[in-house]
């Protein structure tokens, strides 16, 4: 890591934060092990949240108390986002796509498809909602700047909000493989961050990005605009709330299903919480990810063999199984608490859906945000004609972040691109664009299998029969199931 030579060490002004040293600590060891060992202290100082207060009993922690004690109420979030010109995006009815789905569906099937056009947010994605809250929180708590570790739209969102709210911004991105080849979608996001005035640290592949991130937090005293703090998740609740209210006002009823592109879990969590706060309690929350099974997310070789840098199973499954693998001790994004159903689609199907959106609806968006659209197009065909399915987001499109850019890049990296049956898609080897819309499908993911993986992980060396009642109650909430079903799932875990 480069060191701060002069500049502004410890410029987070905040007498309100007694844990903050008056300046960055000179002479502290900067090697990997030493910095990682200071992780807890750095996170505490850079988020202002003492996560320890929510811990216990046993393996449990008080999720709702964390959300209410450190987050913001829905009216507060609405006010903050209103001042930041974030949110209140249009709900669009996709009439042509609905008509096409009805052509393919059995008689009486083919739900109306709506789309929440989140690309209308200042930075072009729903991530502006999270960023508005994180940057607001940083500003009102005396931090001089914000740091985000992200290769996604969140970087541009934080940079955009930091620009609006007068804070400095640093974005730490995983961008290149060891050949110095950058993923075009990430290059574009880095460009957007710089356009909004952020410093962008672009790294090669590897989870040790977190080391760099911690050093930057320590050097600058800036706020950790993590995707996973209670503030960031509270910011998404307005998305679920708005789409529920908009759907009811337009159609006289709440949506029957909302399809959410699922990666780190924030989109699912915030949207579902917002739906509940609007009273839309019967709405099915369906997560959708791009299937990237077989590709290793920390592999220098696999990095540029994928065409999607987010919304995929490489994040979706691990973050469901272990949400606390995040850059904060307790992740406020906990997708298993809210998912009613989880499906996957292929890269080729998402590109196809992106093309349908442009060609039939006149909307050039995505592609990664169209993962949920690809799934919704199929799911609508399974639902009744009088039902409503809402796709909860779009994202801006641009150079690098576009189907033609991504498919050209895929070919340059030895990936076969062809038309055919999307079932022949092989992540990292072959992208198959459907020949016909009837070939689009979703693959149902077994949530119980993911729940068992979650339980296995969280139990560690503890045996199910040792669990105390409060721990069992916590686990039932964590996996969105009844106490009885929890016992069944615990009974299905491998002994030992």
């Amino acid at each position, binding site marked *: *890591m480069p060191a701060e030579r002069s500049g502004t060490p410890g410029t987070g002004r905040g007498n309100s934060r007694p844990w903050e040293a008056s300046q960055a600590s000179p002479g502290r060891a900067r090697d990997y092990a030493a910095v990682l060992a200071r992780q807890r202290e750095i996170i505490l100082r850079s988020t202002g949240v003492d996560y320890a207060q929510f811990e216990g009993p046993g393996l449990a922690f008080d999720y709702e108390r964390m959300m209410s004690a450190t987050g913001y109420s829905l009216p507060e979030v609405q006010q903050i986002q209103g001042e930041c010109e974030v949110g209140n995006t249009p709900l669009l009815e996709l009439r042509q796509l609905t008509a096409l789905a009805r052509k393919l569906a059995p008689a009486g099937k083919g739900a109306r498809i709506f789309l929440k056009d989140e690309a209308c947010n200042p930075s072009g994605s729903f991530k502006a909602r999270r960023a508005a809250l994180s940057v607001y929180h940083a500003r009102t708590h005396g931090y001089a700047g914000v740091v985000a570790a992200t290769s996604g739209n969140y970087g541009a969102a934080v940079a955009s909000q930091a620009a609006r709210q007068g804070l400095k911004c640093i974005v730490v991105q995983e961008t290149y493989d060891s050949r110095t080849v950058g993923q075009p979608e990430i290059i574009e996001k880095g460009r957007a961050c710089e356009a909004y005035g952020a410093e962008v640290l672009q790294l090669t592949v590897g989870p040790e990005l977190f080391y760099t991130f911690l050093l930057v937090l320590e050097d600058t005293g800036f706020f950790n605009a993590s995707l996973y703090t209670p503030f960031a998740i509270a910011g998404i609740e307005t998305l679920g709330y708005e789409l529920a209210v908009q759907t009811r006002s337009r159609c006289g009823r709440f949506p029957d299903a909302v399809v959410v592109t699922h990666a780190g879990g924030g989109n699912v969590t915030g949207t579902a919480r917002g739906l509940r706060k609007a009273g839309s309690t019967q709405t099915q929350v369906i997560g959708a990810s791009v299937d990237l099974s077989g590709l290793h997310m920390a592999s220098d070789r696999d990095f540029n063999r994928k065409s999607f840098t987010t919304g995929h199973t490489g994040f979706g499954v691990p973050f469901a199984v272990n949400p606390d693998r995040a850059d904060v001790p307790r992740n406020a994004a906990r997708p298993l608490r809210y998912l009613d159903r989880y499906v996957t689609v292929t890269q080729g199907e998402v590109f196809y859906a992106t093309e349908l959106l442009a060609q039939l609806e006149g909307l050039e968006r995505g592609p990664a945000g169209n993962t949920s659209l690809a799934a919704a197009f199929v799911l609508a065909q399974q639902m009744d004609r009088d039902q409503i399915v809402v796709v909860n987001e779009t994202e801006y499109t641009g150079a690098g972040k576009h189907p033609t850019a991504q498919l050209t890049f895929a070919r340059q990296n030895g990936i076969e691109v062809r038309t055919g049956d999307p079932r022949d898609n092989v992540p990292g080897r072959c992208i198959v664009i459907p020949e016909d819309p009837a070939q689009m499908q979703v693959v149902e993911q077994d949530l119980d299998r993911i729940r068992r993986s979650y339980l296995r992980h969280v139990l560690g060396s503890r045996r199910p029969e040792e669990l105390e009642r409060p721990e069992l109650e916590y686990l039932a909430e964590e996996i969105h199931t009844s106490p009885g079903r929890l016992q069944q799932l615990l009974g299905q875990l491998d002994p030992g």
Partner: protein
Amino acid sequence: MVEPLSGTGQGGKGREYQRWLRPEGGRIARRGQWVQIYVKVLDAGQRAPNVPPETQAVPLEMVVKGFLQEDQVGLGEPATVRTLADRILQGVLVAVEPRYGHDFGAPVAELLQVGPRVRRLLAGGENHAC
């Protein structure tokens, strides 16, 4: 005061920065020019234990852009920049006024077929069985 860098990209066993050199924008940068510097963060073999072998075999590297602070620096030489976040960072100069090279790519025949086909379908020209 300069903190010791965990890796400058120069010296030691490595001249890894050479792979990052982009001479297109010129080989010499002058004070105030927008440039890109390189920093080696972790050596190959010193990576986190849980990364796969192909990642373990290469260093963790980083590039960042900013305004050059020295009067004149050549590609491959140590350089200092002031970033857009107003930080002063040091590394090895690898590009002068680096351009964004990403674009919309080439036409994709497999996608060009989609619009006409679904429009025909919607117009009722084909009776489609599910």
